[in-house]
């Protein structure tokens, strides 16, 4: 996997630590750009924030809601930002810098953005789901007394009882909450994206991810019955076997091959397994400790979701640099499983966070592991940092090949 997000920082570290004569030009460019941005960023960040998003169309016609909805958008939930110009690199690169995202990811994102404009404008101006009674863009819940001039947010405390569960009588008295039409459009397309991702991965990247469930294969399950499997600290592959396997595999990351060649030892799988098991148990304990209303089986389900999502969306993130927002589906599933407690998934902050956080935490983790790999950091240093110092004593910086590109 490419993990495009790591390319800039790895290149930077490489350049800093190579022979200075080799990298003089690169460093010069870096320091010039660094100096310019250091001075420039002060202006759009603090002195003149209007530069973050300049829209000629909005300036030309300032009192039109249609123009604001379509062309505005330098502040959150203002508009779709069509054809706006930004002078703030922080703002441009915050959603995925065009400097390192692969061209096909950028192209696909642009097509998606154009379709989004069509969809959102169609929903709002076609008045689908009474959209015009609510704001154009918003993620809040609204009361049914809202109209196109006055939006009234839903008062959640009126429908919750003392156990923070949904009170049916409260809903009947106050009416059901509403979402904005564009947000519903967003939720529907995101849910379509979820299944689309999984189908896409099965069709095009099956070989890449099939190892993710190889442990379910009958021969692997048979191993569970043998006592030698459970004595995990003995047996298993020896260092030499592992080394040969890695070096003979043509699809293996060349950086990893070099590390194995140099004699770095790998973290055993059971160590990660122990971390997983330990944190699972502690997490289950804290669930009751902080008074969350999530039952134990809901916790297990959300963790299974996390496992599934890490495999599919992690692979997608690693291959394309595109990070999928799986929050809506988590909300929806949680709302469906626990209907009494949380009638609308938006209220179920606990649930969605529970699985989401595990996912987010983990989407960072492979990225960090990859970063360690690309910079030839000893994989077992998570356990023993001091060992690394000993290693760097023995292994001076080995000459590196260019980045492993697919």
């Amino acid at each position, binding site marked *: 996997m490419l993990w495009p997000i790591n390319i800039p*920082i790895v290149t930077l570290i490489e350049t800093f630590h190579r022979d200075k004569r080799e990298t003089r030009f690169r460093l010069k460019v870096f320091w010039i750009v660094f100096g310019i941005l250091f001075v420039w960023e002060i202006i759009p960040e603090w002195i003149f924030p209007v530069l973050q998003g300049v829209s000629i169309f909005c300036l030309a016609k300032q009192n039109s809601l249609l123009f604001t909805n379509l062309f505005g958008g330098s502040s959150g939930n203002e508009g779709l930002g069509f054809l706006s110009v930004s002078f703030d690199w922080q703002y441009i690169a915050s959603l995925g810098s065009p400097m390192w995202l692969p061209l096909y990811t950028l192209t696909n994102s642009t097509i998606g953005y154009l379709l989004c404009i069509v969809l959102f404008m169609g929903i709002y101006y076609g008045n689908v789901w009474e959209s015009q009674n609510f704001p154009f863009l918003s993620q809040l819940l609204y009361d049914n007394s809202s109209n196109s001039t006055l939006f009234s947010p839903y008062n959640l405390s009126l429908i919750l009882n003392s156990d923070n569960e949904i009170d049916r009588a409260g809903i009947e008295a106050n009416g059901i909450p509403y979402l904005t039409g564009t947000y519903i459009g967003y939720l529907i397309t995101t849910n379509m994206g979820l299944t689309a991702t999984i189908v896409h991965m099965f069709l095009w990247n099956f070989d890449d991810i099939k190892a993710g469930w190889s442990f379910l294969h009958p021969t692997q399950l048979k191993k569970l019955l043998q006592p030698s499997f459970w004595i995990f600290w003995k047996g298993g592959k020896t260092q030499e076997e592992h080394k040969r396997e890695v070096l003979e595999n043509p699809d293996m990351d060349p950086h990893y091959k070099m590390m194995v060649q140099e004699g770095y030892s790998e973290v055993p799988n059971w160590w990660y397994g122990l971390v997983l098991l330990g944190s699972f148990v502690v997490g289950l304990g*804290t669930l009751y400790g*902080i008074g969350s209303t999530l039952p134990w089986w809901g916790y297990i389900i959300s963790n299974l979701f996390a496992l599934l999502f890490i495999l599919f969306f*992690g692979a997608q993130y690693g291959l394309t640099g595109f990070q999928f927002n799986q929050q809506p589906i988590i909300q929806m599933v949680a709302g469906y499983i626990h209907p009494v407690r949380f009638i609308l998934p938006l209220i179920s902050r606990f649930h969605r966070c529970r699985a989401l956080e595990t996912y*987010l935490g983990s989407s960072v983790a492979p990225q960090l592991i990859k970063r360690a790999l690309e910079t030839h950091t000893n994989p077992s240093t998570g356990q023993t940092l001091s060992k690394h110092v000993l290693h760097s004593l023995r292994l001076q910086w080995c000459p590196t090949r260019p980045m492993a590109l697919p």
Partner: protein
Amino acid sequence: MSLLPRVGAIGRFLNPFPFNSKEHAFIVIMASAAATNAVSTEILAAQKLYYNMDPNAGAAIFLVISSQLLGFGIAGLLRSVLVQPTR
């Protein structure tokens, strides 16, 4: 690291060799792991803001740590799929 002392018994123990790219990578990894927020803190914030609950500080710390490590464990087990192949 030139800021750390290099002389004396303590200096030699802490800082025996010149700063190299691996140490640099470690700093970057640690800093970026600390720079991203843990989503689990949102639960605690939501409890306080919307539900008028005050979660126990110890339980809250364990919640954040366990949720982060849970993902780390899963990702670690999947690293032969997600990290090591070149494709």
